[in-house]
């Protein structure tokens, strides 16, 4: 069973995101980069399938040279081959353009299964997997939380995550593409012998031009901005003007305020609380 896994590096989500309005960009000097958690789950699944059915796992990424680091991590986890398609401008590309390049690369590789992460945690498009499938003409199921390959290797029964814990069970012929949800598995921690092996492997490079990609992006990036100010619910209006301004200018990054406290008779409090929940759209 040959499996291709599309992975991507993303900025470590613990780092603060500050927008430089002048440059129309985020300040990324201090960032470090990690493998997109959804992709890591996809890779883990691929490795597990390989361990059961044999075959080869190839990881492929489109990104900066720096992304070689996450490919090496993939080798540690159990990928057999790692391919980097270098591009410094990949972030400016949209889901279609990225998927287009990847699908061209995948079409040259033997693949019984293509696995992607359900979404990336930076752009959050949740689209690349589906587009690759469309371009390759593969059946696709996204947000998979369970993946069982039939013993004959001809089909897969998958469980797709829906909302509020619901699931849909589906069956797809193979070859197919699946995108992995975080609940699919728990990625392994590599053994030291695997890490040492991976450090010695070579990362293959594939030139975008050699892939003969014609179509470009279908959307263009316009601006990046701070998130709009969170609507802060102020039942008591007890905030000082300074605090209010801070909340407004700080947007979503604003420190939550402990002065937003309601008290009083339970039924009055309950009314305020329910209004709050309704405003925040938590009521079904």
């Amino acid at each position, binding site marked *: 069973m040959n499996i291709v896994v599309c992975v991507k590096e993303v900025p470590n989500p613990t780092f603060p995101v500050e927008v430089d309005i002048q440059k129309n960009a985020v300040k990324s000097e201090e960032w470090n980069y990690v493998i997109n958690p959804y992709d890591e789950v996809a890779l883990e699944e691929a490795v597990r399938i390989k361990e059961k059915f044999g075959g080869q796992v190839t990881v492929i990424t489109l990104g900066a040279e720096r992304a070689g680091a996450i490919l090496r991590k993939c080798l540690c986890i159990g990928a057999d081959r790692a391919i980097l398609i270098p591009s410094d401008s990949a972030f400016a590309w949209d889901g279609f353009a990225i998927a287009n390049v990847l699908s061209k690369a995948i079409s040259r590789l033997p693949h019984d299964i293509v696995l992607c992460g359900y979404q990336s945690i930076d*752009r959050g498009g949740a*689209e690349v997997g589906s587009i690759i499938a469309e371009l390759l003409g593969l059946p696709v199921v996204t947000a998979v939380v369970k993946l069982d390959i039939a013993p004959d290797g001809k089909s897969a029964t998958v469980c797709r995550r*829906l909302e509020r*814990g*619901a699931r*849909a069970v589906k069956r797809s012929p193979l070859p197919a593409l699946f995108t992995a949800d975080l609940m699919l598995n728990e990625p392994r921690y590599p053994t030291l012998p695997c890490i040492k092996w991976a450090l010695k492997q070579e990362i293959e490079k594939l030139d975008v031009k050699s892939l003969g990609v014609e179509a470009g*992006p*279908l959307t263009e990036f316009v601006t990046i901005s701070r998130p709009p100010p969170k609507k802060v619910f102020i039942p008591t209006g007890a905030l000082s003007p300074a605090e209010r301004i801070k909340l407004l200018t700080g947007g979503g990054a604003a420190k939550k305020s402990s002065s937003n406290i309601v008290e009083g008779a339970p039924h009055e409090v*309950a009314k305020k609380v329910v209004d709050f929940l309704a405003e925040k759209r938590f009521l079904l």
Partner: protein
Amino acid sequence: MTLGNFAFRVAKGLFTMEGDIKMTGAKGIWVFIESERDEIRKVSLETLCEARKLANGLNEELCALLLGDKVESLAELPPHYGADRVFLMQHESLSYHNVDAHLNVVANLVKENSPRILLFGSTPLAKELAPRLAAQLRVGLVTDAADVKIDASGKLVVRKPVYGGKAHATFACAPATPQMASVAPGFMDVKPPDASRKGEVVKLALVAGGKTNVEFIEFIKGDPRTVAITEAEMIVAVGRGLEKKENLSLIEELADKLGASIGGSRVAVDNGWVPAERQVGMTGKTVAPRLYIACGISGQYPHTVGMERSGTVMVINTDRNAPMFKLADIGVLGDVSQVVPAISKRLSEVIAPPKEKAQ
């Protein structure tokens, strides 16, 4: 992918419109409407209301696309929220989970009618359907929009949260039509419906099903009581402030009303109020639900490292100085055993008795 193996004909019947759908060129805004057991999904209504504004700006028609198995009863609703026309197609192959069938139908409809803009509400179906459709049609798509606009040149301009919501980025779709976007839930307002508003309902029939690759086998209902705490969208968490096991029924009532799952602090687990796999925190699970309600939890660091990425945090505590309040979007100073039942009571007044929700 095979295309064009559909034939449409207008069903004559109860609804007003007769004749073939006119080829209008790239004109009009379409909204893909989804239903969930006898109701139009809220995010579809949000999208529809927002689309109405765009349609007004363009002065073009707003069409609702209602596909599914037995959805006819809902067809008159989209006009109440601003749709001018409703395309209704019913067929058993158009069950919610059959993405391939939806894709074939929508692709053909779009090709034949060339809408200028096609919007989806961001749902599990749309997340699979919209990117495939856009790829097939080679048109631009922006998913999970927080805001959609049309700029002077007629391009669809979409703003969406990126980096986990820590910034918002704006993208513009290429001129190829339809320009597509899916709208994230909870960003747009739903206007109160205007029941007097009527629109024409165009009933389409699916004559032959397209090729379906992925076969739907079964639907498994989600139950907030049993769903893994890491997957829960809303969590009501209890701590020592619950005081006694008997009070747990109050929490369960609130959780059921909200459709939330129950979690707890280490004390709650030690006391046997909450099973160990529902402990939130450093030596428990790390969770990031949309809503986290901390009932009688003081907010010690080993607990908060496990929940600080939650969307909205509500805190109920008798101690004004409890560190938990520092994370609160709304805090309630009061006794859990009094406040929680009061909230449950109020909730029953506000929301209709919960229907069986399912896709």
